[in-house]
């Protein structure tokens, strides 16, 4: 592991040299930094601002050829329509939340087992197995989705939550197992040995000692799986037939660019609501994120 967990928003964040103690900062340097950082902030926030304001405009204002920089007639109409009778947005939301959450929980559980075995196991081919598992992450999903459709068909998993969850879980497992391996590698073996001396078996040690200590890792892995599942367009697009079972990405894609018109306002309102859960997941884990990423990837060497 080379990178340390970034602690971006905690008050006790380790800051190597506070601004005030840096000597000889030339004013023009400060100005250049300020300009670039401001540009960076604009770059990051402007699209989000546009998404939010668009969602509050009425349909005519949204498609104006000279866009307005802020909503002239503030309206909640777009949001109202999302939850009105006419659009199964709430079922998209429900489908996305259920499948992503369940996939996150299952994938974390299975990843934790795999990570423990890969981290502490002494079996032959352990390293090789680990690399194969990681390698499956680079396979192009779109190539596999055709045959996958055919087996899901045979196993009656099409158009079900189970099928989607299985798909998401498998997509998340390679990386999840490696992240968990990284987190478990960081638990001192001595603590585990202490538990062995105390008479606990592997499962007891895993559940009472190792997993409690890798709680941040479990959450990070879970959040990663959740984000991946939440973002996944391909699986629901191909493995789900009916609109009512559809998740947000394909749901949004097909219902706002439907046969009749492209409804930007409604799309942006849906986009805002789609973003909120992901933002929440994201800010909950961001400080552990890099540790998980680099731990997972680097531990493979």
């Amino acid at each position, binding site marked *: 592991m*080379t*990178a*340390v*967990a*970034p*602690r*971006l928003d905690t008050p006790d964040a380790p*800051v*190597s*040299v*506070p*601004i005030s103690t840096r000597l000889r900062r030339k004013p023009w*340097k400060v100005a250049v930094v300020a300009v*670039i*950082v401001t540009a*960076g*902030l604009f*770059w*990051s926030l402007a*699209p989000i601002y*546009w*998404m939010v304001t668009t969602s509050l405009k009425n349909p005519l204002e949204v*498609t104006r*050829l000279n*866009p307005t920089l802020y909503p002239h007639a503030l309206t909640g109409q777009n949001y109202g329509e999302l939850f009105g009778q006419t659009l199964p947005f709430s079922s998209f939301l429900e489908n996305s939340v259920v499948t992503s959450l369940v996939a996150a929980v299952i994938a974390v559980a299975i990843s934790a*087992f*795999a990570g*423990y*075995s890969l981290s502490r196991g*002494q079996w032959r081919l352990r390293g090789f197995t680990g690399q194969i598992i990681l390698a499956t992450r680079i*396979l*192009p*999903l*779109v*190539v596999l*989705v*055709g*045959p996958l459709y055919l*087996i899901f068909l045979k196993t009656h998993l099409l158009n079900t939550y189970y099928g989607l969850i299985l798909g998401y879980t*498998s997509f998340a*497992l390679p990386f999840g197992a490696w992240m968990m391996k990284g987190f478990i590698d960081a638990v001192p073996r001595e603590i585990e040995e202490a538990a062995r001396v105390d008479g606990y078996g*592997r499962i007891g040690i895993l559940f009472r000692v190792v997993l409690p200590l890798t709680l941040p890792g479990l959450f990070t892995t879970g959040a990663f799986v959740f984000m991946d599942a939440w*973002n996944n*367009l391909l699986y629901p697009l191909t493995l789900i037939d009916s609109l009512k079972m559809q998740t*947000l*990405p394909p749901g*949004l*894609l097909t219902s706002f660019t439907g046969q009749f018109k492209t409804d930007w306002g409604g799309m*942006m309102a849906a*986009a805002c609501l*789609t*973003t909120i859960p992901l*933002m929440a997941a*994201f800010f909950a884990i961001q400080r552990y*994120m*890099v540790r998980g*990423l*680099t731990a997972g*990837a680097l531990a493979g*060497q």
Partner: protein
Amino acid sequence: MKPRRSPWFDWMVLPTIVILAFVIGYPIVRTFVLSTQNYKVLSGLPATGVGFSNYQQLYHDPVFWQSLRNTAVYTFGSVVVAVIIGLALALLTEHMAGPWRYIRTVLLTPWAVPLIVVAFLFRYMFDQDSGVVNALLRDLGLIHSNVHWLTSSTWAMPTVMLANIWTAVPFFFLVFTASLTSVPTDVVEAARVDRAGTWSMIGRIKLPYLLGPAMIAVLIMVINNFNDFAKIWAMTQGGPAYSTTTLVVYVYQLAFSSFNMGYASAIGVVWLLLLMIFAVFYVRLLQRASR
């Protein structure tokens, strides 16, 4: 004497292997088989073995070569730009403390926007008629007629890449910010004692510490971009013409619009091999760099 290690401990990896074998292993085998067959679902005819003729057809298919090129441009172009922006922002915000540190959090927000939303958002902002980007550029006097961002062969790819870069920058920013905290303070202080200037401080002292994490981050991002479907599909569906058709889009179109499963699988196999070769080279590079 054999060690008494309980064998089940090693089986804990089994659920992972079983699931991957079912959801990924089997489809790979099936893809290889399909790639040697003529299987057009729409024809209603059963699949027939055709040996390597799908691969021959592929060799003469200009769209395949164009989508290969597009994939490379999209993948590597986005990554290079995103690395540069992410690195610059990480270096510039490194010493921000107090309330300024929230700037870092703000710079990360694009990552939390779902990919499909990013696609919609950029499609709307870069709409040639009602999009805000053209309006702003017009108001600033930079353009006189609307730029056809997503509807011209010239601009569609850069615009899609821009959306991709927007989502990728925070990732690199986070990786670099985190790695910068791992640069030992005493090394930085030693360099300051040696009166290292800003550039040599960055180039000679800090960048070496960022190299390892950066390479891993690049690998992750390259793989993600190779397989990126949501953004391109939602923004252009591969058009106009084939100007943003990457391999993912092409395979999806062949498999699920034309239902030409055999041909789609052949492309899939070639692509799989390309990714494998890339991954092997990259891992080698990574190991050499970390030594």
